[in-house]
């Protein structure tokens, strides 16, 4: 082993940053843990709000669809009633015409 290597080992001896450093690291880690905990609680709140929003959105869209179908049903019923009414009128006219022809004979 050369003296240069000995001198390098001496130059690069480890140095302890002291007990204040330990305390700072442990405090920072505790702070990070609190932040993580807060984050997880906040995350839970956000997740709940998101789920609620999804439920409302799906419920709203189903309700809208149901109303649309109902409106279309009502419209179809009105059209059918009108068509039957026209057909009835036409049949009455035809019957009156036939009766008039029979009376003329």
């Amino acid at each position, binding site marked *: *082993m*050369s*003296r*240069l*290597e000995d*001198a*390098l*080992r*001496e*130059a*690069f*001896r*480890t*140095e*302890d*940053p*002291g007990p*204040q*450093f*330990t305390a*700072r*690291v*442990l405090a*920072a*880690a505790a702070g*990070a*843990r609190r932040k993580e905990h807060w984050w997880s609680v906040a995350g839970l709140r956000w997740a709940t709000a998101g789920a609620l929003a999804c439920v409302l959105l799906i419920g709203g869209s189903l309700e809208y669809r149901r109303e649309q179908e109902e409106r279309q049903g009502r419209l179809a019923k009105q059209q059918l009633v009108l068509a039957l009414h026209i057909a009835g009128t036409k049949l009455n006219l035809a019957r009156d015409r036939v009766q008039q022809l029979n009376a003329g004979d």
Partner: protein
Amino acid sequence: MAAASNAVMGNEPLPDFASLVKAHQAMVFSIALHYVRDRSAAEELAQDVFLQLHQSLADMQSGEHAARWLRKVAVHRSIDHARRSRFRPQVGLEDAPEPATPAAPGDPMLSERLRRLVASLPEKPRAVMLLRYQEDLDPEEIAATLAMPVRTVKSHLQRSLTMLREKASRAFTPAAGRQNLSREMGEVE
């Protein structure tokens, strides 16, 4: 500190976070300090490394695993920091806090000169030298830490030592008023 480090280094179950910090803070801080050569930056960097360990604690299998992980992360973070600070103004010496522990015994001027010479090396050889002479790792362990071939580690070590011998021989001549260390530095094992 060494005894505590040995106890934590074993393959026994993972110690708690506080024990890991106490056992390895000297190693992590010294890697950062010797690499970036700025005490406050080294403290900040070492703290970040431990906070990263705190987040990854669930992945640690043993004390030895945590020590290897800390060494690796400390070196890579130091390299990243040195890269970034190349483009940033440095903090003046007057702003640097006082050392927490007294300076190491020995020849402080020679040690400082060697640290400066090693600091002038490119990033990978600098990391190799640090792991070799601070952490006393053999080339295989250094290769595993830095994810490079063993042959490259040996080559970095050889070239860096040659360069240091040359530079040291120029710096410590009798004309400079110091003992002629050049011959001593040239002694090969």
